[in-house]
């Protein structure tokens, strides 16, 4: 914090490029560490009052496409006295060199040391980034343990979906923000700004206190966790008078007022998604019981067709991308998705711009959309997510799809020229038996049979892709027990045999799966409490990095660390994962308010067990999940009745875009 520490702080913000430059020829894909992308903003350090380093704690190729970081980056940099730069996880080859040469974690824009910033904001879409958080904090020269930090260290703030239960990383972060970040980062900025302008009264403690008093920034150190003799939590209570008992999530209403990203960052390095992505809505009330994202982002807030059209137009012109992604949790559910797709397809007909829509809904409408989207020639794969193999298990998870619907939809796809469809499933769901999973094989066989009959061709395929179920906080399954990895792996083996039991059909079916072990660790991290922090630290010390990558993830390391660390608390890995919780147990995140009423969640869990389905509140009456009244929000959906007009080329001929 340069203002607080004067000249010393200024020096600390000097570019590390001269040292870094000498390391880059020795690492793989050096371009990912260089910055210089279109859309990147380099600002004068001294002219800024509040300085943010934003991180997606995974490799650049995965982190860059994340919208969350890009949005917050742009929102922050629009203020003249605010500076935001980005940093991503460095691969072990560079980490080793950085340690050997004393080069700290740096930002891409101006290669400044992360330790020199005021706020270090880290975005967690998944818990698998926790070990990378520790690497970054440590490489930055920031004490790992938040309590040991001084006024000169940045305030480490976690955000993103995993921040809805930040307890496992409570020791390492100073604060967490639940929910949408657009307004939250501005509020935090204003508090830091004021505090610095006042001369940093009361130091770090006072700053954190001011953040905590907003009731929407969670500062773990201001809360004590008491445990019962059997290891369960007794209660979580504030340890000082002036912080709230519960911390509430943030909800950005009216997405049309926040049309970001306007100037997306265009990577030079290759990344997993090279496209202009626009969120067409936030939230989802389909009510799939395993889906944390759907539960914690309620209610549904649509961006209007007009704003989507404008954003696509500006975003493409700015970036030069030729692919558009229409993002959301269930894009086909936008009230005007048909008009959006046909409007955009028409506007970009004859250009090489292609549209994509992460489609998961199983109905014929999706195929109409897909056809609209492939007007420009490119035919992207079709993906459907029935998630469960048997009708029964689909009722448990509230995925309201019948097998007839699925088969009809897939056959329509085949008859419309698609040769390949992907089907997504989960394994290890609550109440699941071997038979539920074996039904997947039967379903896949039916799909191929029906497809062959309808097309008269043997040249059709489907891929069954199956992932492990992980119970998540703030979902009806937060009480559920996880299945042991051996059981999962055995079910997957049986499934594979069943698929191949018919040679002819089996040949047309691809099978992709993740084995059970990584899911168990994800389960530990997602429903863990503060005691799990010691496991994360131990794994990290033993070399754990990039846990989202199978080639880096080591189950053994996690199991050993858990066995070393947890017994002192009277609990173990199983206690956190395969144990079912009961209604009255205090969950580690009960003091963190996602708006969902815990009684409603429990009722929905009971409904799941009795295979009772829950409708969607967009087209049936409100079912009182609790979010809207407690967060003072409401559903915002169309239709607006507006249409996208054909684009008239404004200025054909060359243009020299302003250099960003």
């Amino acid at each position, binding site marked *: 914090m340069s203002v607080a520490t004067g000249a010393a702080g200024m020096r600390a913000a000097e570019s590390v490029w001269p040292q870094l430059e000498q390391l880059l*020829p020795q690492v793989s894909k*050096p371009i990912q560490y260089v910055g210089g992308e279109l859309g990147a903003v380099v600002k004068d350090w001294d002219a800024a009052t509040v300085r943010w380093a934003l991180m997606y704690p995974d490799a650049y190729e995965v982190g860059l496409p994340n919208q969350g970081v890009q949005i917050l980056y742009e929102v922050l940099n629009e203020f003249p006295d605010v500076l935001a730069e980005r940093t991503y996880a460095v691969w072990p080859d560079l980490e080793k060199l950085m340690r050997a040469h004393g080069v700290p974690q740096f930002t891409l824009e101006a290669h400044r040391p992360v330790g020199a910033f005021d706020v270090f904001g880290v975005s967690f879409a998944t818990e698998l980034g926790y070990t990378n958080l520790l690497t970054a904090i440590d490489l930055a020269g920031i004490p790992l343990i938040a309590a040991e930090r001084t006024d000169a260290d940045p305030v480490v703030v976690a955000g993103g979906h995993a921040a809805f239960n930040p307890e496992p990383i409570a020791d390492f972060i100073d604060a967490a923000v639940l929910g949408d970040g657009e307004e939250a980062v501005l509020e935090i900025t204003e508090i830091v700004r004021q505090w610095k302008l006042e001369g940093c009264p009361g130091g770090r403690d006072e700053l954190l206190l001011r953040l905590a008093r907003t009731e929407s920034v969670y500062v773990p150190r201001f809360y004590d966790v008491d445990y019962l003799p059997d290891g369960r939590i007794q209660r979580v209570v504030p340890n000082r008078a002036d912080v709230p008992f519960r911390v509430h999530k943030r909800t950005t209403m009216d997405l049309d007022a926040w049309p970001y990203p306007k100037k997306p960052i265009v990577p030079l390095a*290759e990344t997993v998604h090279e496209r202009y992505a626009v969120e067409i809505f936030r939230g989802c009330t389909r009510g799939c019981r395993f889906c944390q994202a759907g539960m914690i982002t309620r209610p549904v807030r649509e961006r209007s067709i007009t704003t989507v059209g404008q954003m696509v137009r500006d975003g493409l012109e700015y970036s030069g991308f030729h692919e558009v992604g229409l993002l959301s949790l269930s894009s086909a559910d936008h009230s005007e998705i048909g008009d959006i797709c046909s409007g955009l397809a028409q506007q970009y007909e004859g250009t090489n711009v292609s549209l994509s829509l992460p489609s998961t809904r199983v109905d014929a409408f999706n195929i109409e959309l897909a056809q609209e989207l492939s007007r420009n020639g490119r035919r992207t794969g079709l993906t459907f997510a029935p998630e469960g193999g048997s009708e029964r298990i689909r009722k448990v998870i509230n995925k309201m799809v019948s097998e007839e619907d699925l088969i009809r939809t897939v056959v329509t796809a085949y008859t419309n020229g698609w040769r390949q469809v992907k089907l997504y499933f989960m394994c290890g769901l609550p109440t699941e038996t071997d038979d539920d999973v074996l039904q997947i094989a039967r379903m896949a066989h039916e799909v191929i049979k029906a497809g062959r009959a309808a097309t008269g061709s043997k040249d059709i395929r489907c891929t069954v892709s199956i992932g492990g179920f992980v119970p998540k906080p703030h979902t009806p399954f937060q009480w559920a027990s996880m299945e042991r990895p051996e059981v999962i792996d055995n079910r997957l083996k049986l499934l594979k045999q069943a698929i191949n039991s018919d040679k002819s059909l089996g040949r047309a079916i691809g099978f992709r799966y993740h084995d059970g072990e990584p899911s168990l660790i994800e389960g530990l991290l997602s429903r863990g409490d503060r005691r799990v922090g010691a496991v994360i630290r131990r794994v990290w010390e033993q070399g754990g990095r990039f846990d989202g990558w199978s080639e880096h993830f080591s189950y053994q390391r996690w199991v050993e660390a858990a066995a070393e660390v947890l017994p002192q608390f009277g609990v173990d890995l199983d206690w956190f994962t395969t144990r079912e919780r009961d209604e009255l147990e205090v969950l580690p995140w009960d003091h963190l308010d996602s708006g969902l009423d815990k009684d409603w969640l429990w009722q929905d869990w009971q409904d799941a067990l009795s295979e009772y389905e829950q409708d969607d509140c967009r087209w049936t009456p409100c079912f009182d999940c609790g979010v809207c009244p407690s967060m003072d929000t409401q559903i915002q959906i169309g239709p607006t009745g507006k249409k996208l007009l054909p684009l008239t080329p404004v200025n054909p001929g060359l243009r020299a875009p302003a250099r960003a």
Partner: protein
Amino acid sequence: MQRIRIRYAKRGPLRFTSHRDFARAFERALRRAGVPIAFSQGFTPHPKISYASAAPTGVASEAEYLEIGLQATVDPGQLRAALDAALSPGLDVLDAVEAAGGSLADRIEASHWRIELPQVESDVLRAAVKAFEAAPEVLVERLTKQGRRTFDARAAVARIDVVEAAEPSTAAADAPSDERPSGVPAAPCAILDLVVRQVTPSVRPDDVLAGLRVVADLEPPVPPRATRLAQGTLTPQGEIVDPLEADRPEAPIGER
């Protein structure tokens, strides 16, 4: 179809872009700048771009060349400015001329390189260069896609000299290196000046440095920094001629 030939540079930090990275950025720049690029026929049409050269990742260049085909005629000067503005600073479009025929690739016979070796004394480098020049053949190894290959790095070298570094001004040496003009390194820093003929397998700056290691145990303590200064046809006098010269309207007819 109008064909335009372009010279571009890869400078400073952006010298770490690989050829594929540049190609993606260039295609996006064509769209940003509204260039009426022509597409190949076929099921998946590709923009008509052909690259005459690709400096290795991590190597800077002042002279890379490519050719594009257009559906509509544009002014090369305006095209240069528009494309330059559409690319990140550090990927700079330096020149654009309308193709007058012939093949660009055929005009690339040799490259002129400058290699800075920080923390190496000029005398040490001079001795190594002498040994290199004296050797009839310098076998070096490189890992290629086909596996490990051994080849001669000596024969393709048309000229190899150690140049005296201009006395670096203190101000420039203290500035962060990306602001420092690339010709002014912090001392001590030996500088190698190299002309290498285009052969197969191509001999790159790395290979010559490997050769210096072979003949004289020269181990630079920090990674050297190479820049391609020019490439083109090689005159009998050892000069390199910009391959775009022959396309310029004012060029003497005989050279077209």
